């Protein structure tokens, strides 16, 4: 990215004796995975553009423990959670935004019982908020007439019943939003959840991400929109498996909005 991104840390805010409006929880994928880092930067670009006072934990952030919990390692999960909660509470964090529905679900639903109580929002909810409060205006017609289909992340949709925020944001781009047959509460998983991202699938007759990509292809989309770094990887791989990567792009909603 050519322009310089402003990414202040909580430690810097603390040193100045200030509190940001919101903490941006980057998450492990968003910090280290090459594809997900682009989503992180796109979201920061949006935050900068809307003049949001935000901060990240930077090197003080650690994995939420979500994936360990789903793999069955409750010990590791709780160790990670307690460590993160200690840091978050020390900074008196009130509100958290994240581009990762798994972190979103984990911090929102599983941290409170361990002493971490925060108002947690997904980045699609936050972008919607920025647009409706007038802090972020979308100009340009980059996506006018483009067919976009949204793949619901399980941990935003079914897990937390948020189906509308990502769609509301997409509608603001004047794109032609098309729905897959399986969508919202009946959406098919991309295949990465429950720690599957980190292992080979069990023996079967096909891959889940390819099946899901076929759902998306049925809508004849120009763009497949995602709201989760793992879904993004799975759908990108699916598109490659179908040899459609030159015609169809897989983009996170943050990237779509940052490009308008």
């Amino acid at each position, binding site marked *: 990215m050519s322009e310089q991104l402003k990414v202040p840390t909580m430690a810097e805010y603390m040193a100045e004796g200030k509190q940001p409006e919101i903490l941006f929880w980057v998450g492990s994928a968003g910090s280290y995975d090459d594809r997900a*880092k682009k989503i992180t930067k796109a979201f920061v670009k949006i935050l900068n553009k809307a003049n949001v006072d935000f901060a*990240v934990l930077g090197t003080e952030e650690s994995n939420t423990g979500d994936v360990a919990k789903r793999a069955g*390692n409750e010990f590791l999960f*709780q160790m990670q959670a307690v460590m993160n909660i200690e840091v978050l509470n020390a900074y008196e964090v009130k509100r958290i935004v994240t581009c990762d529905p798994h972190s979103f679900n984990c911090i929102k639903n599983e941290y409170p019982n361990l002493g971490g109580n925060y108002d947690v929002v997904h980045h699609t909810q936050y972008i919607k908020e920025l647009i409706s409060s007038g802090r972020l205006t979308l100009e340009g017609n980059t996506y006018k007439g483009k067919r976009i289909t949204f793949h619901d992340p399980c941990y935003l949709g079914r897990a937390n019943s948020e189906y509308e925020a990502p769609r509301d944001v997409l509608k603001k781009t004047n794109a032609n939003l098309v729905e897959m047959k399986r969508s919202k509460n009946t959406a098919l998983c991309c*295949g990465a959840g429950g*720690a599957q991202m980190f292992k080979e699938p069990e023996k079967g007759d096909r891959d889940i991400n390819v099946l899901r990509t076929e759902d998306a292809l049925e809508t004849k989309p120009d763009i497949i929109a995602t709201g989760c770094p793992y879904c993004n990887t799975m759908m990108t791989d699916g598109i490659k498996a179908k040899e459609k990567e030159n015609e169809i792009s897989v983009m996170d909603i943050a990237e779509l909005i940052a490009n308008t």
Partner: protein
Amino acid sequence: MDYVPNILFAAILVLGVGYFVRNIKKLIRNIKLGQKIDVSDNKSERWKNMARIALGQSKMVRRPVSGFLHVIVYIGFIIINIEVLEIIIDGLFGTHRIGLKVLPESVYGFLIGSFEILAVLVLVSVIVFWLRRNVIKIKRFLSSEMKGWPKNDGNIILYFEVVLMCLFLVMNATDTSFQTANEGNIISQFIAPWFESMSAETLHTVERTAWWLHIVGILIFLNYLYFSKHLHILLAFPNTYFGSLDPKGKVNNLEAVTAEVKLMMDPNADPFAAAPEGTEDEEPAKFGASDVMDLNQIQLLNAYTCTECGRCTSACPANLTGKKLSPRKIMMDTRDRLEEVGKNIDANNGEFKDDGKQLLGDYITNEELWACTTCNACVEECPVSINPLSIILEMRRYLVMEQSAAPMELNNMMTNIENNGAPWPYNQMDRLNWKDE
């Protein structure tokens, strides 16, 4: 001698209801083998869920064809069973159609007329159900876990309903006084002519036979429930009441682990301290579940409630792509193992004797458990609030925390999180590097 039928009726009734109650007590005992779980909160929300999901069938109709047919059979079942009340009173006191004596003729006629219409609608629906299971070959009825008894069970229930509905209609059609009154015989008037050639005496015998078979059939059906997936007609109600009120993504935090993590993080804790007084002999808490007794009581109730419809399995991404996992099988396995444990207890004077078997391995394999993406599609689909995912996660916990039996790649991932706070082998201090790349 006039009292013989009354006494016989009372005896059959006591026997039928008695045996049923005995089995229900056994079922409650089996469910109580599970771990206690506090579900005494939010009573009003729970009642609302039960009213909406079980009574109101709200999730059944998400699949319009089977949902609509099910609603007919469900309403028919509840309403026609009002008639059973009359049968019981008549049977015990030797009256005939007591309803006609206590209700205005038109009201009684309206009631019976509605029962007759419903009986026909139920018959039609049941036939369509049978066709769906046996002729149309809908995929979710053909999975490997549906071979043998589960398939027969599904059909037996349908045959029962056909027989009961036919007996009800024949009983009305051959009741001369009822037909003469010509009130409420809306369907049976068309069946009555089939019996025209019979003498009054034969007609009466047919009517009595249908009447007796109808009530005996209902009692047999009642007792069949315990051995069948059809238990859902009762258990759907408590199951939807006790169903989780949390967002589906929320997985419980194990309290036993919290206690240990707190101890680990406490700088003042003495790692060499002796166990507190009086707790030396206690077995350390077991993490996760390897058998039905490790699951909680709601999960065991879930298992008995499952009617094997397979909506969960038909939405499961792992199952759709040919993996061994089937959420329905998880529930059936849990129930079958629980039944096995229950029979073991019955055979050993109320005490469970180790049979060298357990739910994990003997029923559910590691391969099934590791195929789950925790996507909640199964939980979303279940029309009666069953949660197969919670059982899968509980068993993964046992595999990982008690047996260290996670797949190698997952062990690597977890080691990375332990060492660098990320699932990949990257340095914690590089976590913010993205901003300058």
